């Protein structure tokens, strides 16, 4: 009897002890997804955009305040304002913004492209590598300008997303379909010919078209678009104005980019920059510069030479591989960033 009881007690105790000794929890991470996930969650995108636009609008406000205080002169504080911009702007966008501030000393606030905070389309990169590119179509600005296509780039993991470029979308242009943000779009390397044309080549060919006009063998591959038209018209205007002098313009693809994200149909959205240098050589004449460009020059007239550096950001929609469709120029921004002359 007692033996049995003892055995029962032992058994009970053993069971209790066994009950107490739970195994240590082990981490059981989910497997890495076969396809990279969108690099940013919706909240993160909002936060990034908010940060960027906050920095930009703060800089804009500071610049305008400084400009109005400087009474037409280029305020000294632009350097510090520019430094703040560097926190969230990079590449062409940073250069353009600073130039616009200078232009604003002559042309007023209208010289500054307003960057809306709201977004209507977010094109997310689905990647786990760097650099990462995020494209955003903004809401239409208050000034009834066209919406902008913003391109933000995170160069390294420890960098923030920087606004690399903005481009005014042309009227009547339709953005190519892209994957929803929760799926993400595959980033396309500059030399990746997944779409009809590799991003780098897109820029190169566009430069060739700008340079050679209709004579370019690539002319038919691009829709004309306002940018090319504008550049051509400007060049022709200079030529007429100068008379005996000479006007030369060179176009080169910008150093940054191009950045590209795949579209839903296998094409790509490519954003690049084009640098344009316009050199005017005067012969026995004086050129009076009337527009805001004078602000960049710091003078109204030149008698020998005038060199204008333009910076253009261009967005293309590249059709999928095998498609015969032309590359559509979605939008662009064309800003003189530096003027020298004498």
């Amino acid at each position, binding site marked *: *009897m*007692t033996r049995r*009881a003892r055995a*029962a*007690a032992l058994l*009970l105790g053993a069971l*209790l002890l066994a*009950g*107490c000794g739970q195994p*240590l*929890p*082990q*981490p*059981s*991470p*989910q497997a890495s997804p076969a396809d990279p*996930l969108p*690099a*940013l*969650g919706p*909240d*993160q995108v909002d*936060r*990034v955009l908010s*940060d960027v636009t906050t920095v930009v609008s703060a800089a804009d406000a500071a610049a305008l305040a400084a400009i109005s205080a400087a009474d037409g002169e280029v305020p000294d504080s*632009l*350097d510090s304002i*520019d*430094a703040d911009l*560097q*926190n969230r702007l*990079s*590449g*062409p966008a*940073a*250069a353009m913004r*600073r*130039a616009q501030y200078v232009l604003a000393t002559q042309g007023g606030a209208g010289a500054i492209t307003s960057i809306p905070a709201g977004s209507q389309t977010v094109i997310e990169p689905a990647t*786990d*590598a*760097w*650099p990462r590119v995020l494209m955003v179509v903004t809401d239409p600005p208050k000034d009834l300008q066209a919406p902008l296509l913003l391109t933000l780039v*995170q*160069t*390294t*993991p*420890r*960098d*923030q997303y*920087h606004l*690399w470029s903005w481009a005014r979308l042309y009227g009547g242009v339709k953005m190519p379909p892209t994957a929803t943000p929760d799926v993400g779009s595959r980033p396309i390397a500059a030399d990746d010919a997944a779409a009809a044309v590799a991003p780098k080549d897109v820029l190169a060919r566009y430069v060739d078209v700008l340079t050679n006009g209709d004579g370019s063998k690539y002319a038919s591959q691009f829709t004309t678009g306002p940018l090319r038209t504008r550049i051509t018209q400007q060049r022709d205007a200079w030529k007429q104005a100068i008379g005996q002098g000479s006007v030369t313009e060179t176009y080169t693809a910008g*150093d*940054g*980019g191009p950045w590209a994200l795949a579209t839903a149909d296998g094409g790509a959205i490519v954003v690049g920059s084009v*640098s344009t*240098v316009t050199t005017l050589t005067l012969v026995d004449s004086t050129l009076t510069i009337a527009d805001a460009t004078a602000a960049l020059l710091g003078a109204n007239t030149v008698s020998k030479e005038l060199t204008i*550096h333009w*910076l253009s950001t261009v967005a293309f929609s590249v059709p999928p591989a095998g498609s015969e469709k032309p590359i559509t120029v979605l939008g662009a921004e064309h800003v003189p*960033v*530096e003027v020298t002359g004498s």
Partner: protein
Amino acid sequence: MASLLCLLGAAAAGLGVASATVWRADDQLVASASGEPYIVTDPGVLGMAADEVQVTARADGKVVIALGRADDVAAWVGSDTATHVTGLRNRSTLATTVGPGVPGRATPEPSGSASASAAPSASGSAAPSTSSSGSPTASASASPSDAGGVADPAGSDLWVQQVTGTDTATFSWQRQDGRWSLLAAAPDGGPVRLTLSWPQAVTTPWLRPGLIVGGALFVAGLAWWIVLLVRTRDTAAVALVARVTRRPEQPRARRGGRHSQGIPVVPAPDAGDGAPTGRAATPARWSVAAPAEGVRAGEQAGSTQPRVVASVAGPTTTPPRVAGPPQAPLTRRALREMREREERERAAQPDATGPSADQAPPVSAPERGEPAAPGAVPVGQVRRRDLRTQPPPTAQDHPVMPAWSEPPTDMRLGRVVDASRAGTTAPDGTTAPDGTTAPEGTTAPDGTTAPGDSAPEAAERPGWGRRLLRRRRRGDRPEEAPAWAPEPEAESPMVLPTPPEASGPSADAWRRAWGLPPVVDRGAEAEPEWDDSSEEEGR
């Protein structure tokens, strides 16, 4: 064994409850680790012990806790050294390894042209070169090589959530889809202590089984007990039958004795209007111990019984028979006294005194006798004690008997009937004071008591508590114990002889009515009683 079962059951239930209370596991699993300057949790660690986790990071100065995708966190750490939390080492310590954020992969270089040339050349210089090449990447955070090798993760776009604090930062995380890592850093330098606290859904797996098994065991034990009790009661009942036939008065006496000690009252009826007097006489009961006759003897030693017996026998005149053998020495004296008493009583019966003296002993006896119910008394000793003490009362009751037969009103139905029936027989006992009953009671303390006891017991079956109380009371009065010494079991043999007398037709009828076996085995049945008691000891 039954009590052992009960014990086991209670123990099991108790352990079960304890497992859910005292020994209940902590409802927090808290583990921590230290690292410098970064601590990174591997994917899956945050949610390994619960769906939510409370994170606390402590360091000197600024503390940052950042939550990001595992790949992002690893990439952020890059080639820097970090302490990686890989799991739990034990229930209070996190398992860690030290290594670069991305094994075998350095922090990604800024991609080629984008920012390679991008020395934060003051864009103010606005050289064409700047515009063309210039993407001055002003990183929000210093690169690891700067700032003494500790970068500040705060504010990075990589983080889904982040918390910064001074000296301490806390953060709570809810399980969500994906691979998540946590980065804790002390940008000012120094070690970071990371504590993860998971709420634990504390299960009490042993509560229910413990209660169920324990309850089952307990109930089994109880059942066993009950079985034992019933068995003993049966035997007791048998004994009762025998007794009833002899002395129907017992129940009454017992009842009166218990409540109001009215037993003395009962005798009064004999005298005539005894009831009132009886009550008044109650106190006498206690004084009974020293009945007129017994005083001397009682003082002498434990010889109380004999005295009593003697006194009882006296009235009956026959007692010598029964009482004779065991108490031979006393008999003469007793007889003498009894006769005297008898005469006194007859003369004095009208007065309450006579009865009171006689009855007093019985009263006390019944009390003892009741508890003595075989089944009720767990301890053999007590019971025996009762047995020994009882005889005197029974013996003294007899004289009263005849009068009793009528007042059954007090009795419960069953008993009453019995009593009345018995009464018929009883009268014999009384009328024939030869005292089949009386002697029996006296001589065979064991046997007699058993019947006497059983009767009361039967009457009170319903009242367990009472019985227990009584038992205790009994136990409390050691004074009554003196009776002990005198007659041990030696007298038991005597019991057997007496039963036969009791086994009249009426007794059989009663038994049949109660569904009990015939009287034949009386002796055999009486023995079981003792067996029971031995069993009781076993318990």
